């Protein structure tokens, strides 16, 4: 019953979601000279920071199978896709506050529009990653497919986490503040800018971090390797489906309660 209503609303909201997405993208880039270039500039800047730190010798990271600039480049970009995925649901729901408190429409439209936006932004980053790694001489269709598959999982995992936090985040601003604090911290507990820790205890911790297999798989697949810790990956798939669905369910029932308090 409830599930049927959820999917009915989801499909009926596709038109509106498309509109909202186009509206946001147009509005975002219209008042800017560089326009869509910003979507490329931001992730490139992060990656170059790390390449510079490494080249200058300020941080000395060894033991990567692939050239370090490529390693850190893929790592940071994939991480930023994940961070985006976590942020998106809360961000987009918050910016639609005026709309959801005044007009009744299927709230799935906001979720779908935010998914489109996430895919759009991630798509640009993925294209950059692909181009750069081909430039470094790594190219395999199969690897690229595996890489894309992993990224879909990363986005879905991040989005589901974000979705689960959204109702709380709409009530209390703390959640919105916590995410940007927690994410960079978590980044250093995953092999984003370094391949592994020398201290065994820390390394164990890194192995437990769900982002470790995700980041490593995406990078390895693109550069000729294979899936990293497939068992853990399957667990993440299951967890993603579960929290994604639960998050969606909670989101639906929470909106009226949130609207009351806006």
């Amino acid at each position: 019953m409830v599930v049927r209503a959820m999917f009915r609303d989801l499909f009926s909201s596709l038109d509106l979601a498309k509109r909202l997405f186009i509206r946001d993208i147009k509005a975002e880039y219209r008042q800017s000279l560089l326009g869509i270039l910003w979507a490329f500039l931001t992730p490139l800047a992060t990656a170059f920071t790390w390449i510079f730190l490494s080249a200058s010798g300020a941080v000395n990271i060894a033991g990567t199978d692939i050239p370090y600039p490529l390693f850190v480049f893929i790592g940071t970009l994939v991480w930023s896709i994940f961070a985006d995925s976590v942020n998106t649901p809360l961000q987009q729901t918050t910016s639609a506050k005026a709309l959801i408190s005044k007009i009744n429409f299927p709230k799935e439209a906001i979720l779908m529009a935010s998914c489109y936006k996430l895919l759009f932004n991630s798509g640009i980053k993925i294209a950059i990653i692909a181009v750069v790694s081909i430039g470094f001489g790594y190219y395999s269709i199969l690897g690229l497919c595996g890489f894309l598959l992993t990224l879909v999982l990363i986005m879905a995992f991040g989005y589901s986490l974000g979705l689960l936090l959204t109702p709380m985040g709409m009530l209390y601003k703390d959640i919105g503040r916590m995410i940007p604090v927690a994410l960079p911290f978590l980044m250093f507990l995953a092999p984003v800018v370094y391949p592994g820790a020398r201290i065994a205890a820390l390394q164990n911790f890194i192995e437990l971090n769900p982002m470790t297999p995700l980041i490593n798989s995406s990078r390895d697949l693109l550069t000729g390797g294979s899936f990293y810790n497939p068992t853990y990956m399957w667990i993440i798939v299951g967890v993603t489906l579960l929290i994604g669905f639960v998050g969606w369910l909670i989101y639906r029932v929470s909106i009226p309660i949130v609207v009351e308090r806006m």
Partner: protein
Amino acid sequence: MTEETLIKVEHVSKKFCKDLKKGLLYGFQDLGKTVFGLSSNSGLREKEFWAVDDISFEVKRGECLGLLGHNGAGKSTLLKVLTGLISPDKGRIEMRGRVNALIELTAGFNPILTGRENIYNNGAVLGLSDKEIKAKFDEIVAFSELEEFIDTPVQYYSSGMKVRLGFSVAVHTDPDVLILDEVLAVGDAGFRAKSFNKMKEIMKSAAVIFVSHAMPQVARTCDQVLFMRHGKSYYQGDNVNEGISLYFDEFKNEEGTIELDTGANINNVKINDQEVANKSDFVTVSYGGDLSIDLDIHIKDNSVKDYYMQIQIIDKDLKIVAVYFSNLENPSFQGIERSKLRFLFSNIQLVDGEYGVSFLVFKGDGGNSSTKNGTLCIYRNYCKFKVKGLNTSLYAPIHLRGAIFQNDSQL
């Protein structure tokens, strides 16, 4: 017109929390309870109150319900419950067909995008498909009269223009149920009249709930009124005039003020020979009867050779419903220091209600000047009287009396 009931509201209640922190906490608790399918307790928690308390009504197609009440009476909360934005704590709501609420017209607008783009966006949010919007686009633009600026970003629009655009989109959605929250109070006079007519047109085929503080509009549109007080239904019925006068009774009477008394003083005002010194006690005048006003006037300025008076009759909305110039058909009063004045008006055609009277005294100056420096005194809304005897369900301040003829013979 079909007698189809489109809106059915049964014993709807909604509680609200006055305290922000507590409210958020309750929200969190409610969230948990809803997720786990537990019924939330129906009683009030600390700092909560019933914003909407046991409201029931029905609206059929072609009917219009006017929702009255002072600010904070729970009207907007009720509307939010009706539109499904928030869910009621008690009771149930049944709506049929396309529901469209004009609560905030410009909610879906993005300021950077052009009027054209915003029409598409707003239409989509209100539930129109791209095809429907395309088909109606020209009509929408024509109604808004914004052809010239349709490709201009909405942020360059004036607030009136934005509302025009929002209203134009909203009224072209062909709703079955239309909910209007004070949206007609916007725009210039021309657009107001136009949107009012458009609404009347929609009302023919829709069930409408109309919230407004503009009583003439309520009087013209509504078939029934629901007057809310502290969340409860205080008056409900199809005597619109009764509802409107109750609404006005709600407000504390604007105390009479003496704006100016440098040139003259007025004392001992009597209406129909009764003292009106006691402001809580009203002199009752009957519809069709006489109204006499007696007063003592003291002209302080002895250079005044002659003077005249203006008497204004003000309704509860502080609108001047009638005015009398003593010098229009009569000679001026002579500039004697102290006089007793008497005014006699016969055949009062004011409808039942409370009225205030303002007295203004002007220097004669040949009898036709009303310049500011000729003003001797202004006693604004100084005394009040009540009219009784004509009870109609139509709200209009003046009900004319007249003779009628059929085939040249008077009836």
